[in-house]
């Protein structure tokens, strides 16, 4: 009996080996433990969903997809080790993932070194211009520009920014400044807080004294999320809060008791509550697979869409060969999915998409204020004169460099 079992196992493994030789390998780098596991978990699940669906529909170029997904533990050095492992040992065809900007910048040089196609499916501070990197998440052109336009029009010109003192916070704050000036507002105050700050009394007092019409909050990480509770404990005025990450990314409206996210606006291409047929369908399919996940955030849609765009490009190129796929992507492939129609914009390697202004009231009820259709992320091309289809500098532009 035992021998039979072993025999069966061996045969199964041989089949497995044969099948493995003829698969397209997708490498994914996400955080399943540590500070960033909050988003890393649902991003991983969204990728597993995408791969399952492609495989069930017959795979890609007649081959099944195989996912290789180590845990990067919210550790940049781990990202580097695992990126090398995926490229050199597992010989994957594409790498997807990465959450924090630091993790992306840690592995981007490795992708360039080995000529590996890389999808960064996440909201970020914008500006990456790299031959091998495609950014399918929302960037400041999608998020900050519409948000500031809307907020200044609705509430008034005085804007106060409080941001995490690292790259995402600094660069997004520069964008807020740029947008505020463009739409006729003024910055009445700006403060950058170290990531380890957990007590906000003095910042809250300064905000009150500046008396802004709009408060832009760009705080990140679990330590800094103590801000909202302290804000409502010390502040009796109902200043509206604008942000690019809360609710849609970190589902603070579910994690904290009201009124932590009261009167808060965020721009996103997708949230779980989004009331379109495609979004509802996506959430239902996701929930069927992972019923216990606390939230399906905007990066889940970005990750899923990123994978689908890759699949589209491979079909178009007829191969997984990296340069051919890049050519296909640059020619502008699109995918109509949970976040509506998303199209790669060739010259900047970013994505054209719809953006919603999402609002949370005092009871954390989500509603949708406005939709901005098909925003083209062409800032690198227009202002920095960089066309990736012609030449790639492989750097990250910032508003002031």
């Amino acid at each position: 009996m035992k021998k039979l079992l072993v025999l069966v196992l061996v045969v199964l493994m041989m089949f497995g080996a044969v099948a493995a030789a003829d698969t397209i390998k997708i490498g994914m780098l996400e955080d399943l433990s540590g500070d960033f596991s909050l988003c890393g978990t649902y991003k991983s699940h969204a990728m597993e969903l995408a791969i399952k669906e492609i495989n069930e529909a017959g795979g890609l170029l007649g081959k099944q997809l195989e996912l290789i997904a180590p845990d990067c533990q919210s550790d940049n050095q781990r990202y580097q080790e695992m990126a090398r492992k995926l490229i050199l040992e597992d010989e994957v065809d594409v790498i997807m993932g990465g959450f924090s900007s630091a993790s992306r910048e840690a592995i981007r040089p490795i992708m360039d070194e080995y000529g590996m196609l890389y999808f960064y499916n996440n909201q970020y501070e914008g500006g990456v211009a790299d031959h091998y990197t495609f950014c399918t998440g929302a960037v400041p052109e999608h998020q900050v520009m519409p948000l500031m336009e809307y907020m200044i029009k609705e509430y008034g010109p005085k804007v106060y920014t409080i941001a995490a003192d690292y790259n995402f916070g600094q660069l997004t704050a520069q964008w807020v400044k740029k947008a505020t000036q463009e739409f006729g507002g003024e910055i009445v105050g700006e403060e950058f807080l170290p990531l380890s700050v957990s007590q906000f009394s003095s910042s809250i007092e300064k905000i009150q004294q500046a008396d802004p019409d709009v408060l832009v909050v760009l705080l990140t990480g679990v330590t800094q999320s103590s801000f909202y509770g302290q804000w409502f404990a010390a502040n009796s005025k109902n200043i509206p809060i604008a942000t690019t990450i809360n609710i849609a990314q970190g589902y603070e409206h579910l994690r904290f008791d009201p009124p932590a996210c009261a009167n808060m606006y965020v721009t996103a291409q997708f949230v779980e509550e989004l009331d379109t047929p495609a979004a509802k369908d996506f959430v239902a399919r996701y929930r069927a697979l992972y019923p216990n996940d606390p939230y399906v955030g905007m990066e889940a849609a970005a990750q899923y869409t990123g994978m689908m765009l890759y699949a589209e490009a491979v079909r178009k190129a007829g191969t997984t060969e990296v340069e051919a796929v890049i050519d296909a992507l640059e020619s502008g492939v699109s995918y109509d999915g949970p976040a509506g129609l998303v199209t790669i914009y060739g010259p900047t390697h970013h994505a054209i998409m719809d953006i919603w202004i999402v609002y949370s009231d005092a009871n954390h009820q989500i509603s949708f204020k406005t939709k901005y259709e098909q925003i083209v992320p062409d800032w690198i091309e227009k202002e920095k004169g960089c066309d990736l289809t012609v030449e790639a500098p492989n750097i990250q532009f910032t508003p002031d460099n």
Partner: protein
Amino acid sequence: MFSYLYQFLDSFSFLVLAVSGLSIIFGMMGIINLAHGEFIMLGAYAMTIMAKASVPLPLAIILAALLVGLFGFVVDKLVVCRLYDRPVDSVVATWGISLLLRQGILILLGPSLPGLTTPMGTFMVGGTSYSIYRMVLALIAVVLLVLMYWLFMHTRFGLHSRATMQNSATAQAMGVNTAQMYSLTFTIGSALAGLCGALYGPTMTITPTMGQAFQNDSFVTVIVGGANPLIGTALSGTVLGVIQSVLNITMGTFFGKMGLLIVAIIVIRVLPKGFSGLVESYMMKRKNR
């Protein structure tokens, strides 16, 4: 003007509450408890879970402090009591405990717990609103210092503990059970850490890593304060509170944080025994005159 007072009281109470448990253990036993931040985190978790189960908040806070004290007692019996005479090894061991607690809570209870809302509302001074709860915290910090003064100066425990602190061998020879004193000290220190976590729990996001925010500042306060848990805590809480609140208001939170760390490095060079060393040597001089 009130703004400076408020910010000072806010920094002062944070530092005093965060450090008291650590400084009692350090002053008495010469042991630096690197799991101090995690003890604070446990206090916050215990308080939050009880308060969510509709235990009244003040009771939940006291119970959480007692629970963490009990936990500290167990940790002392299992680990720390074996390391009384190996202070550096105790640093490494308590670090191991801190890693175990942090990751253990992450696995058991997930990356964050739904928090409470801060109780008590706000009051207005000159057009700016302030949190009442934070002023209550400042009051509690002052009461805690007074209690500690009473405990050390007017009780039998205080007498024995001061004797143990000055010279444990002599104290032992005079009939003080020093091992028991150490165990009791570690328990009280843990309970104070738990109290700090329970008090700040309603103002923060409850996460396994939240203790770090307290731990770093409390180390700085201990360095500046020195070995005497009473004089050191009161003095360094005041001085650092002034420095931090002034820097926070005038230059921003980043400078407030850096200011603390830099003051610590300077103090340790100029006054290796901290403020309590300074005060003690001053008192000695007066006595000898």
